């Protein structure tokens, strides 16, 4: 008999560092062991973060194998939820809310300013691959409107100065990072 045994967990392990795999395993433990699908969202988020903010077909396939779920189950989740990017995006994704409360408090000005400063339109990525700007629906921070999110961090009560400050902070961190790797999200949060 031909041995068809296959370590379905191996593929993802070759694509991700160990801490990321451990993080996925941590999520798996939250759900009944016979249920394979509940950690899909969390696993895709971990994978996306480790792949420069976007998912590839190979990564989605590897997640499916790792969790022992059909490929289509992973693909359905990846295409349904707005936080997953299936195309290459910038290292830092700037998401601006332009729903009601933010629009009432000047979200359009924030969008305009970002487009001008970064010289890209909504949905585009800068040539250096550092920034993508996009609009998102309400992020539940309307008391601090207008607001935006960079990677994992909310910035509220935006003014022209504040938006400029955010951009120069990210730029400064990027320069520092080239010298010494550091976790941006932790630093920006201050």
């Amino acid at each position, binding site marked *: 008999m031909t041995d068809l045994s296959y370590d379905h967990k191996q593929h993802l392990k070759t694509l991700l560092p160990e801490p990321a795999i451990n993080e996925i395993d941590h999520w798996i433990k939250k759900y009944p062991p016979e249920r394979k699908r509940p950690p*899909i969202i969390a696993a895709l988020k971990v994978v996306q973060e480790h792949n420069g903010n976007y998912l590839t077909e190979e990564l989605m396939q590897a997640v499916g194998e790792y969790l022992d779920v059909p490929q289509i189950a992973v693909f359905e989740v990846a295409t*349904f939820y707005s936080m997953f990017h299936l195309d290459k995006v910038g290292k830092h994704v700037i998401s601006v809310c332009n729903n*009601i409360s933010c629009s009432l408090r000047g979200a359009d000005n924030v969008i305009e300013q970002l487009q001008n400063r970064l010289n890209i339109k909504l949905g585009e990525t800068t040539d250096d691959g550092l920034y993508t700007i996009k609009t998102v629906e309400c992020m539940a921070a309307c008391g601090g409107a207008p607001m935006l999110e960079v990677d994992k961090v909310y910035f509220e009560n935006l003014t022209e100065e504040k938006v400029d400050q955010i951009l120069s902070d990210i730029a400064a961190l990027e320069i520092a990072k080239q010298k010494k790797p550091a976790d941006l999200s932790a630093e920006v949060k201050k």
Partner: protein
Amino acid sequence: MANEVCFRTLHLDEPWSLEAYESVGGYSALKKIVAGELGYEKIIDELKLSALRGRGGAGFPTGLKWSFMPRNMPGQKYVVCNSDEGEPGTFKDRDILRFNPHQLIEGMIIAGYVMNATVGYNYMRGEFYEPFERMEKALQEARDRNYLGEKILGSDICFELHNHMGAGAYICGEETALIESLEGKKGQPRFKPPFPANYGVFGRPTNVNNTESYASVPVILENSGQWFLDLGKPNNGGTKIFSVSGHVANPGNFEIGLGTSFKDLLAMAGGMLGGKKLKAVIPGGSSSPILPAETMMQLTMDYDAIGKAGSMLGSGAVIVLDETTCMVNLAAITAHFYYEESCGQCTPCREGTGWMSRVIHRILNGQGRADDLDNLDRVASNIMGRTICALGDAAAMPIKGFLKHYRHEFEYMIEHKRSIVAE
């Protein structure tokens, strides 16, 4: 009469810590249960008496919902918290999660005891990284003190609570979509019945409540159902967190008694921004129909009063609009939102939200036609009541509201190709 319930730790340093929560009486309701002084029947009775109504938007009586759970049914049952806050204008659950996470945890443990469930999930929206970290830390503190886990405080009660995160989908705030999402699928709502109390997470009996609802429970049990009821008004018990945003001087969350006048709430939020004139208010999140200033200034903020005026209290998201607001523009933002967030499962909603959004944007861009408004109203009517979940209604109701009160602004724009509101 402010910050007495969900925000009762707000005045303290590090209000999210276990010490802060215990210093205001936190976990004492759980201790009473452990000591055998508070049975599950008594808890449900107190909740019914308190007239606590679902804080997520539907306003369903929480005590009644809890009583539907088949506590004696063998096998696992689940307690699920809906922290998928996303109704435009709403930002209260984020603050409960960030500033008073232990009260939510205690509320969910108590629910677990009442329903005989040993596992809970707190479903937070995917963008809530900061609240997630607070919650994770709070869960660890609670586990370390044996408020969570096996044989809680030496009793026979066991309860484990997990944080779960979404990934960006408004529809997951609908409880059956949330359950689908928790199971790792697309967040597409299920047919009801069966209701989650019979067939929920993993096909097991499940109780889903909003963050603010669970977090209200410990305080009700520490005091009494009557005490909570008296904070509000009959059939509208307690305080409620109102998220006030838009054209006010000091936007923010205000936890005040139900039945407080809108006038007072507006004053608490610092009044109108820049002293401008109030034009209208969206009283309960973007799916609630807009109400003109004259109506709002006469109203009290509670489920019954707002409902009687033709709108709804919803999640308590109060969006204040001044005289410079163009209603066509606002309708366009609203219609686009529901178009964007429709899960695509039911044809009337999937197609109808797109039609509404395109027609309003056509008007906004100076291409409106004479029969557009009748069409809009017709499309909205044809969505209502014809979809699996309430998103269809939530998309249609505000559009009908804009047309009912501000039809002349749409007509003006169709005719003159510009807004009636002078810049």
